[in-house]
Structures are given as C-alpha cells and as structure tokens.
C-alpha cells in the first residue's frame, strides 16, 4: 500500500475541519474508506486491491519454491453423506473444520477402531482447528462400524468422520 498511517492521520486532520462524514479514496492498488461514527471518532476500512505479485527471481528448476498459485480453497466442502439412516448407522460428524486425528498424539494407539464399543461421551477422534485440539464424542451408545476419513486429513465442517451402529440395531 502506498499510504502510510501518517498519511491517514493527515487526511483525518483535514477532514476534521470539514463538514464531511465520509471519504473514499481508491487507486489501482487500494481502497480506503474513512467514516465519522456517532461518537465523533473515525473508522477506516482498507482493501488492498493489488493482486499478489509473482517471484522477483524465478525459482531454479531444482528448487521446490515455485511461482505463487491461486490460494487453495480453505473450506473443503462436506462430502455428501450416503444415506446412513437407511443402514441404521449414526453419523459422527466434524463439529468444525480442521484436521482429523485418530489418536491423541503421534504413535499412540487410536481412540477407536472398527468394532470399538462406544458410549455417547466416548472420545472417538480429535479435530485440530487453529492450533486447538477439539475432542469429538460418539454421541450414541454402540459400536464403531466405519471410519471414513484418513488420519491427519483435513475435514470440512459436518464431514462424516465415522459411523456407529447403535446398540440394539440388527446387523
């Protein structure tokens, strides 16, 4: 951005003496909107419009670094879940998007495997989101019938991670 915070301060000083409540400044590289709020203070909304620039020096072929590519989508769409209810199975879904872990730490035995008996509050896996580990519970009494997500794979919110056959359901 070509505008420093000092520039914004100067603009505000100018605006303070004028009867305007709002100013928008747009160039090829940014858009700045200044607004006077009800308490007399100002707010700022800035958008950097410039597209990310590629590398100044082309990566050597042997190097792993390459030209910037468009960002990968950060929200993996939830997989359409096959009709689990028809099979009498209960879905265990990701409560929020993140990385799916089957064990409490690398090398430790998994929380559950296919066939494990679970209670509603049995921890069956972890979803790591923003460096926080979120335990996922089975939510139902039964036995783990299927595990649908690979360990350490990314799961979108609502993704079916496992299915549990509730106690009392016929095979």
């Amino acid at each position, binding site marked *: 951005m070509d505008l420093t915070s000092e520039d914004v301060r100067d603009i505000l000083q100018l605006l303070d003496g004028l009867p305007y409540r709002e100013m928008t400044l747009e160039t090829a590289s940014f858009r700045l909107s200044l607004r006077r709020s009800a308490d007399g203070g100002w707010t700022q909304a800035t958008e950097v419009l410039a597209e990310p620039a590629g590398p100044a020096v082309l990566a050597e072929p042997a190097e792993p670094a390459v030209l910037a590519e468009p960002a990968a989508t950060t929200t993996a769409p939830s997989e359409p879940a096959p009709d689990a209810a028809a099979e009498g199975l209960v879905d265990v879904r990701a409560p929020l998007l993140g990385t799916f872990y089957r064990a409490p730490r690398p090398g430790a035995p998994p929380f559950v495997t296919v066939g494990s008996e679970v209670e509603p509050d049995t921890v069956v896996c972890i979803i790591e989101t923003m*460096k926080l580990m979120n335990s996922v519970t089975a939510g139902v009494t039964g036995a783990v019938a299927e595990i649908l997500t690979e360990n350490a794979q990314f799961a979108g919110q609502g993704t079916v991670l496992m299915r549990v056959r509730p106690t009392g359901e016929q095979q």
Partner: protein
Amino acid sequence: MILRRILIANRGEIAARILRTCRQLGIEAVLAASDADCDSMPARLADSVIRLGPAAAGDSYLSVDAVVAAARAAGADAIHPGYGFLSENPALARACGAAGIVFIGPTGSQLEAVGDKLTARAHATAAVLPVAAGGEVAGVAEAADLAAAIGFPVLVKAVGGGGGRGLRPVRQADALAGTVTMAMAEAAAAFGDPRVYLERYLPSGRHVEVQLLGDGDSVIHLGDRDCSVQRRYQKLIEEAPAPLLDDDLRTAIRNAAVNFGRHLSYRGAGTVEFLVDPARRAFYFLEMNARIQVEHPVTEAISGIDIVAEQIWIAEGNSLRFDQDDVALSGHAIECRINAEDWADGFRPSPGTVTTAVVPVGPGIRVDTHVQPGSAVPPWYDSLLAKLIVSGRDRAEALARLRGALARCDIGGVATTIGLHEKLTASTEFEAGGVDTGFLERWLYSHG
C-alpha cells in the same frame, strides 16, 4: 552488509507488520506463503510472493528446508522469521549461516541457550537472576520429593515448551503423579523432548516482561510490559509500562533482564519474562523469547522505536544505534488481541471468511492486521486477526481511547474477541490496573 531483499518466512499480521518496515527502509520484501496464504493481504502487499508449500504448517512454515529453498530461489539476503513457527529454531539459524543468508535474530547457540527451558534457568541462575524454586524431575518419584520440598501448588513445565505451551498446574499431591506422566507423554509428542521440570506456582502473580535489544556486545532495554490478562497462559491484553509497580521493583526487573541479555552476549531483539509477586515485592525469571513478540507495538508506542527496523539494523552487523540514556519512554499503551474465537462459547475457534473489516483510526490508535473483506481465516494457523494498540499520555487517557476505539471495531464473518475486550476494559478491576494472571479466568467464571 546492507540488506536489500528480505524473505519473510511467516504469515498473518506479523508478515504485514514486517512488510511495512521493509517498505519504509526501501528493502525489497518477498513473502514466503503457503498455499492457504497466496492470496492473503500480506501477499498483496509484498513485492513478490514465493510458494512455500502446502497449507499444513509442517510442510511449509515449519519446514527449514522449504524456507531456505524459498530464500535461495528469491535471491534473498536475509530471512525474517517473525514469531512462532521457526523463529526460535536453531536449525533455521544454522541453515541460514550455511547458505550464506542472514538470519534476522540471535545466534543458533543463543536460541539453544534459551529454547531449552532448563538451560535457560541455569543461565538465569548464573546471571544472578531470581528463579522460582524447582528443577528437573526424571519421573513421578522425583517429582513427589521435589514438590514436597518446594510446596504446592506447583507448575509442571515442558523443557521444550515455552510461549505458554506445555504448562500444567498441580494444586495438591494426589494429582501430581498423573499430571507428570501425562505432561511427559505430551511433551514427547509436542516438542520431541519428554523432559519436564517443576516450579513453585504463584497463582496470583503478575506477568511482567522486559524488551531487550542487543548487538552481541551491548544490551539495552526498552522498558517493561505487563501481560497478565491471560487465558490458559495465552495473552489477550498487554500494556506498557506495567501499571502500579513501584520504582525500585521496576528498576530491579529491568536490570535483571539486561543482566541476562549481557550474560548471553545477546544479539537482536528479545524479551525476558518474569513472574512478579507484588505482595512480597519479589520476581522470578520465567523464560526468554528470542524473537519479536506479538505485543511489541505497545513498547514501540511509548518509545517511538521501530523494533523490526532495529532487528534489521542489528542483523546487518551494526552496533546498537543508541544507548540506554537515549531511550526515552513516555505515555502508556494498551494492546488488545482480536482473535477469531467465539469467546462466549468456550473460545471456540472460528475459521471462515472475513466479510467486514472496519477498524478505528485517530490519534494514538494503531491497528496491525492481515484481514480485509474476503480474507480467508484458515483453520491451519493461530486465530489472531488483528491487534488494536491504543496509546495516551497516561493510562487513563489510553484506556478511555481504547474503549472508544473498541466500540468502533467491526470485524464480521467470523466470531471475534472484540466484545470480550469491551467488557474487560470496562471492568473496575482492569481500570484500577495491575491485575494478576488469574484475573481473566475469574472474570469469565463470574460472568459465565
């Protein structure tokens, strides 16, 4: 040497912050970005962008090989590691040395001296700093003996931890064995080092830290900060200077930090953290963070010094460009960390897409951020969206401005901690100043 092109091996607000100083100094800034960050605001601000690797940090921001390869490919003279990720990793500092690239930070051996928290404790003792009673424990039996000797409550700490990670308080003897066993297993998994140590725990202490600058020869301080508003050892509000410390105690803490830095012949910017017991007018060494810190802007606000610019100046091989006597601290500054978390729902992380990003602007107000409408808040990294830093001639003026500034913040699309900051800064306890590290948990408990 003069640095002309710096690779920023980080993301988020600190990447944008470093970019700003590079721009002011006329240094070309290349951003090393993961696939999740190639379209971020810092990527748009950078002179150029190099792909670092996949979104998962282990394959990108935490990969020494990927970072050094990116610096080589970019033809960078230097790497700025920011905070977190590889910023305190001696392997990166050494790999830079081997590749003829300047690492903007301390030496590999200084990183090792403070990265291993037991070594750091030993250095603190050698530099005649007060350390809390405690020491390494090899197992449950040793832990029981040591805890009995120092008295409960105790804190079980991972030797490889730091930055508030790998800490577990134990309030009574019957919980010690289980906690030590779990802490060792966790430390092995999280830090690749199962060693733990015990320290006497001070539940009502204050977290006070001192900003240092060193050139490998001289070490000076830029005053202190108070970071006692914490949840689970993660800081939420920081201020400079630390409120309500008497002059003798403040001077003793600052001198202790400088002595620690001098003992290490420290080079670069770093922070020495202390736990202060105001009732007994005592303080104890906690750890040193050998990097730029999230809360550095409150020090910049009261000192007028651009700490990132000084990091670069020192990395260029220069001596400090000012003496202790040249450092003039005036006024008061408070920083609120605005995180993508739903604080009303157990601080549940809130990744997603930012739809609105309106921030306050005006005298004494600074906002360091990396989000604008359309910005992705990916689930792979920490939740810091923005830092609101407000300063005034004194604490009362800074606090009054901060309250007005928070009311004008509007970040939408993801949950944020703005509402929590509004409530905390309105509380009489915070207004009085000098809260302890238990303040936030107590407040949450009584307002939950």
